[in-house]
């Protein structure tokens, strides 16, 4: 008798009608919509809790990566080439800081050298120098970067190209590290 009075122990069809009025297939496979809504929202909330944990862990991981980057110490000093072999208006491809990181050296003026990572900050395509237009061009998705600052000026990229600091010693050009806080 108590079971008949307790509404939570009865299956409620989606249209809230009597079970006797439901089609046969629904009587054979009844779904309690109120219970279904409760369980679905409760389990979705639990899943969001896991998502929240994953996002917090990811955020801390970025912080740890940032700290490890500083702990690794200074950037290597790598010889790129001879200054006199690079004529004005020319560019030279090289790798920095490792052999798998492509970079590009530019000489727009006689006494001016610029170097950037040559991987587009959109989807890592190699960028091509257009020194006569003061820009670097990514042909994959028509992205453009200002040659003097490395900042994106058109297309999908949103971050500047990492700029490599340079030194010239005894006629040889050296890459000495990356410049920070370009944003």
């Amino acid at each position, binding site marked *: 008798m108590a079971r008949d009075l307790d509404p939570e122990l009865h299956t409620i069809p989606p249209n809230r009608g009597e079970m006797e009025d439901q089609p046969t297939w629904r009587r054979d496979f009844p779904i309690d919509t109120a219970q279904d809504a409760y369980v679905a*929202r409760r389990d979705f909330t639990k899943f969001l809790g896991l998502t929240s944990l994953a996002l917090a862990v990811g*955020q801390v991981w*970025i912080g740890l990566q940032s700290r490890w980057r500083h702990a690794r110490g200074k950037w290597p000093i790598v010889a790129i080439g001879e200054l006199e072999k690079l004529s004005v208006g020319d560019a030279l491809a090289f790798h920095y800081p490792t052999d798998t990181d492509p970079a590009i050296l530019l000489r727009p003026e006689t006494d001016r050298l610029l170097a950037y990572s040559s991987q587009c900050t959109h989807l890592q395509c190699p960028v091509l120098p257009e020194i006569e237009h003061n820009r670097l061009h990514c042909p994959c998705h028509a992205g453009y970067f200002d040659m003097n600052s490395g900042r994106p000026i058109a297309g999908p990229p949103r971050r500047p190209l990492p700029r490599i600091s340079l030194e010239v010693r005894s006629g040889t050009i050296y890459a000495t590290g990356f410049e920070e806080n370009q944003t």
Partner: protein
Amino acid sequence: MSDRRPLSRQERTVIVSGILCIVLTLVLMQLWLISATMNAWLGGDESIVWPAALASVGCFLLNAGLLWHLFQLDR
């Protein structure tokens, strides 16, 4: 000794819906935080990395507290 009556399913559904709204808002804030932090960090700006991490952990702790209430509902 507590003499509170047990919550009905309808009441529990309302409570779960409220918790879901708050948790969802906090998770969306965390999602925005991680995308903005990653963008700044890859662009060479590391000044916001740890403040953003603290904010995200704070959001998770709030969510954990709400989830604790959620688990208590079915006890």
